[in-house]
């Protein structure tokens, strides 16, 4: 199981770096959505299904959409 | 016997997932990538979940798996469709070639 943990955590770090390095803000927000998708698997691995289900609903549904709403009100590029 | 079938379904699902990923990397533009996405992902999730369904049998978890398969079948092509549509509307602007093609075949 430790291999799966390490793999997912490495992908998380990759996602974080990619989200930070992307110049297109819309792209950064989309990659951040993938970040919170993968985070939910980590919560399951750590045995916290309550946190996982909340993160699932918030990360996939709410935080991303609020950020895209802000982008639509402001500019898309840095 | 049942175990072998479970493993077969599971790894064929993983195989189709992998094919979808390779398609995502190799194919040239958004629409071709969407082909890989919708088809291989739907079948991949369906196969993995049905292998788990076969492993579990018809219990409360099995019912949940069935619902997941149904919702994936409904929602995954829809997501692909709207992404294709949005990309089509934005792409026509800067090449113009696609618009001509559309008019020519009409």
């Amino acid at each position, binding site marked *: 199981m430790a291999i799966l943990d390490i793999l997912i955590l490495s992908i998380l770090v990759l996602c974080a770096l990619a989200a930070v390095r992307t110049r297109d803000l819309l792209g950064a927000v989309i990659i951040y959505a993938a970040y919170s998708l993968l985070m939910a698997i980590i919560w399951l691995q750590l045995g*916290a299904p309550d*946190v996982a289900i909340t993160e699932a609903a918030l990360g996939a549904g709410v935080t991303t959409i609020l950020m895209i709403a802000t982008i639509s009100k402001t500019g898309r590029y840095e | 016997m049942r175990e072998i079938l479970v493993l077969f379904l599971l790894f064929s699902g993983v195989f189709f997932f992998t094919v979808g990923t390779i398609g995502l990397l190799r194919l040239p533009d958004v629409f071709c990538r969407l082909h890989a996405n919708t088809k291989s992902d739907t079948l991949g999730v369906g196969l993995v979940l049905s292998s788990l369904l076969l492993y579990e049998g018809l219990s409360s978890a099995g019912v949940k798996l069935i619902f997941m398969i149904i919702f994936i079948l409904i929602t995954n092509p829809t997501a692909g469709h709207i992404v294709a549509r949005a990309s089509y509307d934005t792409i026509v602007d800067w090449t113009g070639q696609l618009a001509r093609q559309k008019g020519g075949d009409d």
Partner: protein
Amino acid sequence: MAEALVALGQNYFFYYALILFMVGFYTTLSHSNLLKKIIGINIMETSIFLFFVALGYVEGGQAPILGRGAEGGPFMNPLPSALILTGIVVAVSITAFALALMVKLYSFYGTLDADEIVMLRGEKE
């Protein structure tokens, strides 16, 4: 040195939380775009949550939902999960408020770059 390596093999969750925290911190400091700063803050928050929940992990434990037939095994520590559950909702509230402030700032200054905003304010004064 050997002890540190053994700890690295065992405590990988904590080290990854550390790396994520540093990534978020560096983003918040170095990028001048406000949305990037918010993403950085979110990554920092997530790393703290990861650290907390990883503290409550028990090897071979079950999720803290009792009374499901298979009794007796060790259970995860429910306390960090309960604390983090509140923390996640508070984090979303903070994010929403920050985004609202961003919309207002954009309508006032016409930009989302923190440096430019500071410059514009300097001109006004």
